């Protein structure tokens, strides 16, 4: 582990203030421990090393700022993380929607492709892919461009395959990607009809549509409770009565002021349905 120089709380606050002033992005309600750590790591990989350097570069270059923001996003860990949860999505959610002519699905705050790619495989196997309209949104172009490539991290494939088995997939995960010497890429046909949007979810925003399913797993971990509330309000305004919300296994809606609007579908998995 690289020994990283620690930034002080006052420096951390100064940085957040600058980002808000210059770029109108408010990071003050992000969970501090992990954000602070990611900023410290970024100072090493971007070879800025001191907070003064970092502030100056953020002030001078928009491209540098985009790169900074990109590096603060947290990629999903693997494909089919918590395979049983995907199985539950298939059995308890998709089965209910399979009669619909069109199924609209949104993945907000996507910072890498794993969640989307897993979803595409699930929909393909349920023979629903052609009927789905999927929107993927992310805070930076760089995240979006990366997701579009369909590239997979080779060292995560073994665990992804065993996750897929726990989801009880009908084939082998390897039948959905091409493995070359240095990289692996998701089959192109799966990625054909996705809509990508650069989108900032932290403030009150106009909803860009209503969705039947919103997949938002392990994103709220990086917010404090206030931000969780604001973002859940935003997400809620893009859901109809009867829509589904899929969150991470250790996440919760209990701190949300409108938690009573949602009902958990099964005991073991964190899939909620909007009641009112």
């Amino acid at each position: 582990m690289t020994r990283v120089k620690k930034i002080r709380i006052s420096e951390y606050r100064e940085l957040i203030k600058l980002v808000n002033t210059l770029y109108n992005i408010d990071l003050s309600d992000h969970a501090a421990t992990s954000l602070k750590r990611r900023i410290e790591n970024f100072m090493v990989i971007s070879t800025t090393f001191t907070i003064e350097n970092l502030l100056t570069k953020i002030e001078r270059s928009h491209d540098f700022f985009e790169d900074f923001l990109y590096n603060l996003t947290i990629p999903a860990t693997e494909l089919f993380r918590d395979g049983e949860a995907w199985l539950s999505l298939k059995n308890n959610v998709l089965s209910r929607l399979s009669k619909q002519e069109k199924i609209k699905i949104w993945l907000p705050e996507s910072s890498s492709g794993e969640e989307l790619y897993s979803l595409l495989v699930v929909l393909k196997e349920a023979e629903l892919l052609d009927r789905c309209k999927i929107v993927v949104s992310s805070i930076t172009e760089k995240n979006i461009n990366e997701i579009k490539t369909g590239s997979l991290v080779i060292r995560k494939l073994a665990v992804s395959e065993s996750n897929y088995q726990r989801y009880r997939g009908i084939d082998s995960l390897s039948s959905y990607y091409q493995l070359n010497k240095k990289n692996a890429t998701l089959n192109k046909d799966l990625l054909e009809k996705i809509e990508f949007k650069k989108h900032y979810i932290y403030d009150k925003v106009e909803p860009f549509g209503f969705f039947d399913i919103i997949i938002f797993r392990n994103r709220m971990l990086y917010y404090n409770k206030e931000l969780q509330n604001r973002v859940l309000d935003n997400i809620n305004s893009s859901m109809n009565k009867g829509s589904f919300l899929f969150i991470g296994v250790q996440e919760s809606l209990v701190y949300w002021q409108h938690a009573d609007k949602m009902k958990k579908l099964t005991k073991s998995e964190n899939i909620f349905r909007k009641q009112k």
Partner: protein
Amino acid sequence: MAKKYVIIGGSAGSFQSITEILSELPKNYEQSVFLCLHRLKHVRTGFVEALSIKSKLSISEPVDKEYLRQGQVYLAPANYHMYFELGNLFSLSTETAVNHSRPSIDLSFESAAYLFKDKLTAVLLSGANRDGAYGMKMVNQYGGTTIIQDPEECQVKTMTTAAAAITKIDHILTLKEIINHLKKLQ
């Protein structure tokens, strides 16, 4: 009396020791106890149940942003890092594995060290990699108490010796002595 916090890290060969510690801590134990143990990342259930068999204290895996309570044992959930935030609450994370580990002992220990300062007692048990060494250094730096299980008693001593190599360890103790030390924090 001021509240105190205990954090215990362990990996290969530590399960037996953890069970023994939990079986000895009294029902009215007032400290919060955090367990950061290397575990199978895809097995979500069963670990709390296995640890609970002999424990007099209630054990749970924290949900993100849950408030931490005294007299409760918390186990870092599978495939998540476990942090502690101002306001005495948990924050979980799916960031990259550290020392091939998620949960990483280094990250949990460092975060606890920063928040709980001299009210923290950190214990490192048997393990086959170097996770926890840097975390112990941070505990020491922020004024907490560092304890390792006597490497001669550990099934695998890589972890404890790695910690001792880079930081001052306050107490090198046998499991029996660790248990007595933790009881005296009452």
